[in-house]
């Protein structure tokens, strides 16, 4: 009897207690969100009406949503792919045994540690069309000097550059570790067979780091879907909605317009998209990931 009580006590202590915040701030809100997306709640009025799929229909038809959807995909793709490629190339460069390797790693990684808000402020100054560092540099190279954050064609790229800049270090660390774990024997085999660097990368490094690539691709896309800080600081979704992603649209609808029903509908769509992308990645991984 005492033993069983102890078993229950352990369960209550180890699972029961810590699971409470998890339920209150994760599980319940998710279901409530789903439910809210079928209502017309506006945060103020006490009355809540069930509106079936109206929110979804309205949202899916609105040009704002479609623009944001496109922006989200654009942003996710152009942050994830360059981050992966640059991170991998940096790790490849850092494979060579040279002095000061840890310092290089630390320097390249350091942007990850800084607050996105602070860095977005610094970058918005760098992007300043007339006196900003970037355009002064481009001018010195006799290249065109776009109005970065004020231009609807370049604002998105400006946001993407900051995002990539901040996360390549993170990516590099994982690739460094994965490359470090490749046995020297494999590299010897490549040397013996006279493989070129390109052959080495294609036949050896890429397949052997593929599990890390999958992990990074999935997590980078999930975090791209949730990018907010840099957009809020640098462009507030503008100019002309050119940097408004689904998440930013959700924020505007929920916390500026208090249109909770449509906002949560956007959130649910975002969840579905994220889930589908992750699922597709895992499905496809069978063909290119080698454990």
């Amino acid at each position: 009897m005492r033993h069983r009580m102890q078993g229950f006590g352990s369960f209550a202590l180890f699972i029961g207690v810590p699971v409470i915040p998890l339920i209150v701030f994760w599980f319940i809100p998710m279901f409530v969100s789903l439910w809210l997306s079928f209502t017309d709640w506006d945060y103020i009025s006490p009355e809540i009406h069930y509106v079936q799929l109206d929110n979804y229909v309205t949202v899916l038809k609105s040009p704002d949503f479609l623009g944001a959807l496109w922006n989200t995909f654009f942003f996710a793709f152009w942050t994830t792919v360059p981050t992966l490629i640059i991170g991998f190339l940096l790790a490849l460069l850092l494979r060579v045994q040279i002095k000061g390797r840890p310092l290089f790693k630390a320097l390249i990684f350091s942007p990850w540690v800084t607050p996105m808000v602070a860095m977005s402020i610094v970058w918005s100054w760098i992007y300043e069309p007339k006196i900003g560092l970037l355009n002064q540099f481009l001018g010195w190279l006799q290249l065109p000097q776009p109005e970065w954050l004020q231009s609807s064609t370049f604002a998105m790229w400006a946001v993407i550059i900051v995002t990539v800049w901040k996360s390549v270090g993170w990516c590099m660390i994982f690739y460094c570790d994965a490359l470090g774990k490749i046995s020297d024997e494999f590299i010897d085999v490549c040397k013996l067979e006279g493989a070129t660097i390109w052959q080495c990368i294609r036949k050896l490094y890429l397949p052997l780091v593929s599990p890390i690539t999958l992990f990074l691709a999935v997590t980078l896309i999930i975090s791209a879907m949730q990018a907010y800080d840099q957009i809020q600081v640098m462009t507030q979704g503008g100019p002309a909605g050119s940097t408004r992603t689904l998440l930013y649209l959700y924020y505007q609808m929920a916390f500026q317009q208090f249109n909770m029903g449509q906002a949560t509908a956007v959130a649910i769509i975002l969840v579905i998209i994220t889930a589908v992308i992750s699922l597709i990645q895992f499905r496809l991984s069978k063909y290119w990931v080698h454990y």
Partner: protein
Amino acid sequence: MANRRLITKAVLYLILILLAFMMVLPLIWMFLSSFKTGSEIFAQPPVWIPETFQWKNYLNAFNLAPFGIYLANSLITATAITVIQIMLSSMIAYGLTQLEFKGKAFLFQSMLLTYMLPAAVTYVPSYVILAKLGLLDSLTGIVVSNISSVFSIFLLRQSFLKVPKEIVEAARSEGANDWQILWKVMCPMSLSTIFTLAMITFVEMYNNYLWPSLIVKSQSKYLITVGLNQFFTTQGTFQNQWAMIMAVNVISVAPLLLLFFIFQKWFIKGVGDSGLKG
């Protein structure tokens, strides 16, 4: 051949130095600019090193907004969240790896599901829940709503799974109960994971912006990120305030960079080989 190798190495160094410099350039630019005068800020071509370091930029910033309080708020909440989150997550991770109970698989799978989803979905209901609990506009609210993290639970579970069964059984046969096994066996044996996790959580919580900006309204509760953006939006319109804004940025970035460069060796190694990739 030795010569060629030397040249390759030199080229490699050059590339790396260039790349590393590009990566930290915004940080350096921020730091140097925080000491400039208004005219140096607007100079064309850009002035790199200010003629005299304008320490008063920092003083002015502190006079305009209570950055000391913001900083303290951020450090306090990030520390509290890190400590509590790791404690709670270790407990669940222990339950998931060592205890047998009904619905274990279900619990684990539901957590797996949440991990894949954007946190933003939960914001609206969480906001309402916090309001109902009377925790809006309070540091406690920020802490409470952030103490559970599925990511931490997974990471710790991964690490606990690696603790050999014999060690747990040996501890149990010596009469240790679950509570003692968790804190005296599992956690010490997972120290490197815990350290890495603590660093990541701390950095993320210190840098967190969106959620805290939604729940805190009064200036005395601002986190540094919230205060910073507030300051930027109010002051940023007057372009000659750039130097002061950079000073504020330096203040906000400094604690983490300092922490990072002290612990970078362990941090980088920990992130690389912790079970982060699942």
